[in-house]
């Protein structure tokens, strides 16, 4: 992409479609929270949130129309966030403490001097 491209002006019609989608998705995520999907409730909630965030980034923030080098910065930021979340969570979920207890923080263990000997 050339550095000397003309500024892309997004027409108001596109903004109108995006805001209507965002408002609809908000009501959808509230409705979805009242349906018992077990562990998939959080997947649905974060999935809809990510869809909304993507619409905001691409259209309201014009990320669809910026040069590739700016897109690289955006993608790198998301990738780094994914690293932070994924690596830390995999550590927390797989950690075993000195008593062989998996994910010890969930076990409501009361500590005493005898236990630690």
């Amino acid at each position, binding site marked *: 992409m050339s550095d000397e491209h003309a500024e892309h002006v997004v027409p108001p019609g596109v903004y109108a479609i995006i805001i209507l989608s965002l*408002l609809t998705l908000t009501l959808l995520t509230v409705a979805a929270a009242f349906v018992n999907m077990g562990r998939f409730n959080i997947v649905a909630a974060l999935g809809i949130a990510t869809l*909304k965030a993507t619409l905001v980034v691409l259209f309201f923030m014009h990320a669809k129309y*910026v040069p590739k080098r700016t897109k690289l910065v955006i993608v790198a930021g998301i990738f780094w966030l994914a690293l932070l979340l994924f690596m830390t969570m995999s550590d927390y979920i797989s950690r075993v403490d000195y008593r062989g207890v998996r994910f010890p923080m969930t076990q409501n263990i009361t500590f005493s001097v005898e236990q630690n000997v």
Partner: protein
Amino acid sequence: MHRTGALFGQFKTLEQQKDTATLGMWIFLVTEVMFFGGIMLAYTINRHIYFHAFAMGSNTLSLTAGTCNTLVLLASSFTMAMGVWSAQTSRKKWVTIFLTLTIVLGFVFFSIKYLEYSQKFHHHLVPGRNFNISYCVDNPSACPDIDAADMAKEREELKAAFAADPDLNAHAQLYYSAYFGMTGLHALHMVIGAGLLFWLLKESFSGRFDAEWNTPVDMVGLYWHFVDIVWIYLFPLLYLIDRHK
């Protein structure tokens, strides 16, 4: 500094100048992503460990207030985007109008947030020595804003939650710390954003922003949309845990 109209000396064209500003703004926003990302990670770990306390805490929030605030903030993002469009197409009067609308919607958000925060203070749901997750259930006369049916439901939920987690009162404070910490930092960002919008509004009175030069409107717009995205994630994370019960 040497300057030709809106073009600063170190740039060849206005487009290059604008692209440079946009790139710099995005790099700043990425640092903000990492800032909020760390807080959300701490939230995720605590929620994973103290699930019952987080679900109980979430159910004491007002879903109506949270949903209204989400809709208000999304609408303010739309008016902000329209403000940028007005500047890009040299509709100078509309820049002022859309910036004003964005500020007004921002203050509607603050007002709803204020009502929510003050309710939490009245219900003894602020972490600290007076925190009591059972306060309203134990003193129904002190919480006239919760109707009898909701109160009975909350009593049942609390009973089940205490059975699953005897230390619920301590762990619920972690949820409320996350709630006040995350929404507070988000609100702080909005205060900064509102300050920037007031500055833009003042500048727009003299018709400074047009198709040739609108960088400040565009950059503040990026910041405002970013703050909106933070709320898009905070809303399901804080308000929508275990609502189906």
